[in-house]
């Protein structure tokens, strides 16, 4: 049987490390430059309001009914994206988005595209099982 003192010590060390790691991460977010993101931020709120993530993925996370949209802006261009947003498809409803909403969503997708590449083919695999892009 493990003594209570040993249990408290192990739990205490783990909790302190977890809190330290969390605080460190909050202070050391991966991307420091947040300038010029206001328009993309409005688009992101619209993305959430219409729950686009139920069907679409961003960096492979989200729904599976529609395609991953991380790099749709550079692959398809704004006109193509806006045509889908304005009309819907046989699966995606037409949400009757306003012109402003369409512009802001497109801006969000532009920002998203600029944030990185989600295509798994761009990763190289190392001998230790790790991956690099």
């Amino acid at each position, binding site marked *: 049987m493990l003594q209570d003192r040993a249990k408290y010590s192990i739990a205490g060390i783990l909790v302190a490390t977890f809190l330290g*790691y*969390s605080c460190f991460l909050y202070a050391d977010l991966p991307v420091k430059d947040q300038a010029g993101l206001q328009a*993309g931020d409005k688009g992101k709120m619209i993305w959430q309001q219409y729950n686009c993530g139920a069907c679409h993925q961003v960096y492979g996370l989200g729904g599976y009914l529609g395609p*991953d949209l991380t790099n749709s802006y550079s692959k398809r261009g704004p006109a193509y994206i806006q045509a889908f947003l304005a009309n819907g498809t046989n699966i995606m409803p037409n949400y009757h988005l306003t012109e402003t909403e369409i512009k802001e969503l497109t801006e969000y997708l532009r920002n998203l595209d600029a944030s990185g590449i989600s295509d798994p083919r761009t990763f190289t695999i190392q001998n230790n099982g790790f991956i690099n892009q």
Partner: protein
Amino acid sequence: MDSSISKPAPYPAYFIRFGLVLLAFGMVFGIIGGLQYVLPGFLKGILSFEKTRPLHVSAVLFWIILTATGGIFTYVQEHSGRKIHSVLLLKIQFFLFGISIVLIMACYFAGMFGGREYWEYPPYLSIPIVLGWLLFLVNFLRTVGSLKKQPVYIWMWLTGIIFFLFTFAESYLWVLPYFRKNIINDMTIQWKSYGSMVGSWNQLIYGSSAYLMCKISGDQRTAFSKKAFALYFIGLFNLMFNWGHHIYTLPTHVYVRQISYAVSMTELLLLGRIIWEWKQSLTTAQKFLHLSSYRLMLAADVWIFLNLLLAIGMSVPAINVYTHGTHVTVAHAMGTTIGINTMLLLAIVSDLLAQKQSQGGRNSKNGFWVANISLLVFWLSLIIAGILKARWQMSNNPLPFSSMIQQLRPFFMVFLVSGTTLAAGILMILFSLFKKNIHVTSNQDIQI
């Protein structure tokens, strides 16, 4: 464990009953969602997929949370030999959860969103959930009394309660522009919270299953053993630090991915333990297999093994790069939510509804087999669909997305049919339990 509390306060039963209603809702919306995969545009006008998916996911998550809460409040009374510290707090907690869940479901039907994965509803509806959870923490601590010389399941319950509160609050850091404005920063914190949150509700459920195993075997020693606490600390270590395996392909800090990779590999110890103790498990299984709650826990053990294999594989970045964003991830999510969490919760419900260890009727046994065989087919269909999608993702000349989805359609058909029979199997188990409970109630005035 004190069995002198023959009639624990009945209020935890409200959580379980509401949880069971939500499980039924979750299964209905799961089937509708499956139909929308094979019949594109099905119910598009009134209940399109962006509504169906959160209705399904939230109903199932609240089934897990409510039933785990009800189970803990019942078992903690049995364990401590004391009644719940404050029935009033429990009632307020139930009211706060209940009103939030009803409003959340109404918002989904109305197409009112604003949140994100798991919690897609307008964020302010999380406030009563946080308040209710704080009451849960206070009531639990006051009922337990002291943490001195407590078995492992008390530690697991407390861990689950505290970490759910922390990670749930953390998952709302996005409301602050500092965290939200950059997509990479936002997703890093989002999946940090979600990865740990899943671990926290697992602690709630696994704690109750550890308690139930002790109750069935009549042996409390295992809950105090060094091995039990070693496994608990491995689980806690993973809850805290393995979350990065959700975001290996996100251009976040390299150290986040390296830490998660290393920590996730400690789950090999859990896998090794299952294999090492396989023979002993079989001996125990032969002894208690006639009990319906034990049967369900044994099924969960098999699903733990299968999903642990899958999880460890997916935690290796070199494998994850293939499986990420495919239905292999869905197979893992469904395998753990249904195969492990739901089987364990049904075992707990079975224990609580029957009041005494029940053998279950023919319906219960048939339902058990229908549910588990269906789940295996369901799980395999998703894995195969995922492997085909992975091949598509890695192809140098990929077909259009719609053509790839068309190729996966036969597997979605299998997924839909097996999902429907899986729901039927679960309903058979529940029907059998309720039938028994009504019978017992009418004769002995006993109910949860």
